[in-house]
Structure formats: structure tokens, C-alpha cells
């Protein structure tokens, strides 16, 4: 196996994880009186998540696509378990689940046209059709609306991240053929989205004073948002030459876009949770909550980053 820039990038991520874990370890030693259990749980979960993604990146493209399909499945299941549903719609929900393997099949077969319309056109028209077969009109609009929204968020949006893997990218600095550059773009997107979450949280904890949307998410502050955006943008410019075909300007725009969209995705899922009266979307990832709590930002950054790249570099 030859050492590609993407391997260096992955090694870098592990380096950050090790440093972060050492800091958390030092914190638990220096402040034994304070409760750090959530932070420790979070860090432990990061090890597991990064291990899964590293395996996916290194093993094969198909395996990576399957992993994203599983993430969509878990997120969609969490969503459907959380929202009000109707007894009469069991079959409809079953068909909605079936859209997941189909959508990711379009990804693996590199059929962009079908990938882009399958959920927003065909499933959008098919699900209300199946739903009306039960002839239960009470709550019909709410049921079909929430179902389609969940499918868009958990499956359609997230599948854009996976489609980066098969996107035929050209342009200066593209590395090791299309497959490697696709993986590089995916790594860039996922890493910066997750890094931005942590950066906004950290800046907010240290300097946060002015709340942005206190009614939706009381812990989000302008200091956290702008600090995170600055850090993410700088980091995007620094790592772009390693794994993407972007020049410095495009890398900066991509970084700022990921920071902004990530924030909006985060508070959007917060608004949904507040509406439903739940704190976490689930309990799948210790310290983080549910899987939707972890990928909320990605649901917004993935399609935007995908189209940014597709427009400029294909």
C-alpha cells in the first residue's frame, strides 16, 4: 500500500484525537472534584466513530457507501421513533425504509440523475399514494409531510456525502485518480463538519456571551459561532491541498459554508427536538445522545458542499 495524502490526513485526525484524549485525561486528573463523565463518554465515543470511518475509508468504496446507508437507516429510525406516527401507516413507513437501500444503490452505481430525483420526485409522489390506500384522512397531511421531511433529512441529504466518493472530480491538485479524490472530499466534508461542531462548542464555552437563538438552542452564542467559523475556515485552507482539488479561495469559501450550514443544521434539529419535547434524539452514542444529534450538522453541510464541488470541479 502506497502512502497517499489521504492517509496522512487520516493519521492527522488520529493525532488530534490522541491530543484531545490526553487533554480530557489531564482535566479529570487536575479537577477530580468536577464531573467530567459526559466529556469522557463523548471522547470515548469519538474513538469508536473515527475507528469506524477509518476502516470504511481504508477498506473499500463499497464498504464506505454501506456505512453511510447504515447511518441513514439509524437516523431515519430514530426520527420515526421520535415523531407522532399513525397506526394505519405501518406499510407506508416500511416503503419509506426501503428507499434507503435503493438510494444508496444509485450512489454505488454512480447514476447521478436518478440519485438526484429518486427521493424528491419519486418517493415524494409514491408515499402519499400508498398512504391514501388506507383511506384514513385524519392527520393525512401531517403524516405525509413529516415522513417526507425525515426522508429528505436522514436519507437524501446524507447520501450526498456518500456520492462524493464516486464524483468524477477534475482540476488542479486532484490526487491519485477520481476514487482517491472522492474519498478526500468526503473526508474534508465530514472532518470539517464535525470539527466545526467541536470548535463552536469550545469557543462558546470559553467566550460565549451573546445568545443567537435562545428560544431554540440557549447554549448557542455569537462568540461560539464566529470563533468556530474562523477556526474551521482557516483549517479548511490548510488541509485543502492535501485532500481536495480546491485552491485557497475555494477552500476558504467551502470552510465558511460548512461552518454556517453546520450551525443551521444543528439548530434545525434542535428546533425539531424542542417541538417534540425531547432532549436527545436517542441514546445510541454515549455522551452525544442519538445519531441524529451527531449528524444534524452534516444533513445541511453534505448537500451544499456536494453541489459546491460539483458545480466548480466537474
Amino acid at each position, binding site marked *: 500500500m502506497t502512502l497517499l495524502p489521504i492517509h496522512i490526513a487520516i493519521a492527522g485526525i488520529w493525532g488530534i484525537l490522541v491530543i484531545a484524549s490526553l487533554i480530557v485525561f489531564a482535566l479529570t486528573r487536575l479537577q477530580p472534584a468536577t464531573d467530567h463523565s459526559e466529556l469522557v463518554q463523548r471522547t470515548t465515543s469519538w474513538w469508536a466513530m473515527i475507528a469506524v470511518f477509518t476502516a470504511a475509508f481504508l477498506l473499500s468504496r463499497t464498504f464506505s457507501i454501506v456505512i453511510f446507508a447504515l447511518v441513514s437507516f439509524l437516523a431515519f429510525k430514530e426520527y420515526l421513533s421520535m*415523531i*407522532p406516527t*399513525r*397506526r394505519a401507516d*405501518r*406499510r407506508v*413507513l416500511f416503503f419509506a*425504509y426501503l428507499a434507503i437501500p435503493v438510494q444508496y444503490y444509485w450512489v454505488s452505481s454512480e447514476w447521478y440523475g436518478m440519485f438526484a430525483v429518486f427521493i424528491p420526485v419519486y418517493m415524494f409522489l409514491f408515499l402519499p399514494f400508498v398512504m391514501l390506500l388506507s383511506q384514513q384522512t385524519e392527520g393525512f397531511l401531517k403524516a405525509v409531510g413529516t415522513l417526507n421531511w425525515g426522508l429528505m433529512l436522514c436519507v437524501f441529504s446524507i447520501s450526498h456525502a456518500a456520492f462524493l466518493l464516486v464524483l468524477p472530480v477534475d482540476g488542479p491538485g486532484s490526487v491519485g485518480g477520481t476514487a482517491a479524490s472522492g474519498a478526500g472530499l468526503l473526508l474534508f466534508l465530514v472532518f470539517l463538519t464535525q470539527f466545526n461542531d467541536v470548535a463552536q462548542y469550545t469557543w462558546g464555552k470559553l467566550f460565549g456571551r451573546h445568545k443567537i437563538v435562545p428560544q431554540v438552542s440557549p447554549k448557542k452564542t455569537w462568540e461560539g459561532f464566529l470563533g468556530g467559523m474562523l477556526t474551521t475556515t482557516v483549517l479548511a485552507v490548510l488541509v485543502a491541498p492535501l485532500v481536495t482539488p480546491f485552491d485557497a479561495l475555494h477552500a476558504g469559501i467551502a470552510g465558511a459554508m460548512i461552518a454556517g450550514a453546520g450551525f443551521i443544521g444543528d439548530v434545525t434539529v434542535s428546533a425539531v427536538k424542542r417541538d417534540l419535547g425531547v432532549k436527545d434524539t436517542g441514546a*445510541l452514542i454515549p455522551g452525544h445522545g442519538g445519531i441524529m444529534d451527531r449528524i444534524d450538522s452534516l444533513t445541511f453541510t453534505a448537500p451544499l458542499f456536494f453541489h459546491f464541488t460539483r458545480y466548480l470541479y466537474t
Partner: protein
Amino acid sequence: MTRALQFLFFVLVRIVVLFVLGLNVRRRELLPEDGPAILVANHNSHLDTLVMMSLLPLSKLSSLRPVAAADYFLKTRAMAWFSLNILRIIPIDRSRATRREDPLAACHEALNKREILILFPEGSRGAPEEMTALKKGIAHLAEKNPQVPVIPVFTHGLGKSLPKGSFLLVPFFCDIFVGAPIAWPGSRDAFMTTLGVRFAELSTEKDFAPWE
């Protein structure tokens, strides 16, 4: 041979239960590590027994005994073989007319062998995600075995995934609430009241998403 088949079956069950469904277990530490013990749960779905059996480690599989209605689970020869050898149920005769000796004799015997019983005191699965009155058989069982802990377990979501009368499994996360063991309070009535109160507490611990 049947032990190997049983093991294989429950490995597959665990894959379905933990991945296709997904359990969110509150207070897993209250589950018994060893028998004798009695787990009592609400009943919504055929999945209930399989999920209850997945709560304990695979190494405990041989001591888990679901208590089930003989008229339903022993109906055909194939079903009887599966129920007795794979699920390893303790069949209970529900019809009063035909029974002479203590219908719970097999349960007492199992508890004496330090096995863990799984009971659904509602009797039937009934309408999904709705609890019905608890049957008193469990009180007789507890009275005869006052030293055995009775652990109430409330499950939510399995009736949504696979309600009575349906064969289509639709994935939903399932919430499991394990309650503190109930010690024998001295009388059957007091026991039934305590059990009812415990289930009422466990079932209102979380606001579940409406399902109409």
C-alpha cells in the same frame, strides 16, 4: 443439537433486536445476574419474548424460561417443537376445566433449579401499546416463592414494530424500563397492587411519541 440450534437462533434474534430495532435500556443493572428470578413484562407483540430474552447475556440463555400459553404455543407439532426446544417455554394450561393439579407446578420446579422465568401477566398481547388488567397467576407464583425477586420490565415500541395480527416488521427504537425488584409484601392483593403501581410508574417515565 437443539442447544446449538437454540444458540444460533438467538444470535440471529440479537442481530434483529439490536440492529433492526435497537433497544434503549434504562437501568440494565437491575436485571438479575443469576436465577432464581422472575421477570414480568407488559405484552404487545410476539417480539416481547425475544426482546426479553435478549436483555440478558447469551451465556444465561440456558436458564431463561418464558412462561407461555399451552393452547397457543403447542397448537401444531412444529410450533410445539419450536416452543419447547428453541424458546424453551414452560407451557401453562389456561383452560380451567381440564386442569387438576397446580398449573404453576412447572414454574416452581424451574425456580428451584435457579432458572429465570419470563412472564407476561396481561396474558394476551391485546391492542398494541395499551396495557390491560394483570392476571393473578403471578401473585400465586410469588406467594409460593417469596424469596425470589420479581423484576418488572416495561417495554414500549414493540407493538408499533410488530403488532398482533401483522407479519410486517417495521423498525422502531424500543424503550425498555427496568424497575426495582418487588419483595413479597405478605399478601396476593398487596402484591398485585404493588405490581400495578410499578408498571404505572415505569410506563409514565417518558413521554412516548403518539401512535394513533
